């Protein structure tokens, strides 16, 4: 496990944008129950994101809906993250500016949850320095 990168609560601020629209700052929730990163379809349209997928998505109540996949650039300051990500737009009953940060995003990191503190600890998923204790012990 690499060094600790960031400690945060479940709600974080992200910036999302496509190549056609202006960047927008949104509230995101770390959600290990979501396999993908999801948002209200209205936000995806507002940002002018480009469609690049469509698939059936299962919701918490077991029902299914067709979600549109978009390619977007996401920025998370605390993590130093700035890259293309796939986000799924879902037709929500009421407008929402919240983004669910699902496992498709989290797989880049090792994330430990501290229950009493309600904090997430992000570590780099790439291996840190490896110490060879046997060589160091050497007799």
């Amino acid at each position, binding site marked *: 496990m690499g060094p600790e990168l960031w400690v945060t609560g479940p709600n974080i601020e992200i910036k999302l944008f496509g*190549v*056609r629209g202006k960047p927008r700052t949104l509230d995101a929730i770390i*959600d290990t*129950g*979501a*396999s*993908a990163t*999801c948002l209200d*379809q209205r936000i995806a*349209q507002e940002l002018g994101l*480009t*469609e*690049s*997928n*469509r*698939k*059936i*998505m*299962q*919701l*918490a*109540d077991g029902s299914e*809906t*067709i*979600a*549109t*996949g978009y*390619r977007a650039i996401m920025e998370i300051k605390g993590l130093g993250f700035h*890259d*293309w*990500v*796939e986000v*799924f737009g*879902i*037709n*929500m*009953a*009421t407008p929402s500016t919240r983004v*669910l940060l*699902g496992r*498709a995003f989290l797989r880049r990191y090792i994330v430990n949850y501290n229950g009493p503190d309600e904090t997430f600890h992000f570590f780099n998923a790439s291996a840190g320095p490896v110490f060879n204790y046997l060589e160091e012990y050497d007799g």
Partner: protein
Amino acid sequence: MVYEPHALFIVRRAVNQVVHLRGDPAMSDALDDQIEAYQALLPEIRRKHQSGWALVAKRRFIKLFGEFSEAAQYAQVHFGNEPVLIRHTDEKPETAPFVHIGI
């Protein structure tokens, strides 16, 4: 196999409902074309390549990428805002714990 055309019809109809809700039919029709091409190309992509993010544009398989971000970057540079499909060849069912949706 007998039921496949009917299943396709149901999926198409559901997709069209979403498209009407979104009000962007031209873009989505073009994406549908890429999805249709992808379904036809998938067995060959799987046979010739390892798993990864497949990029399909102009109804042709373009390239397989290790990461979504690489495919998105490539699509942006080479196809701009043209509708392309980026889909993982080992696609798994997706879950999103939203409960209140509009459909």
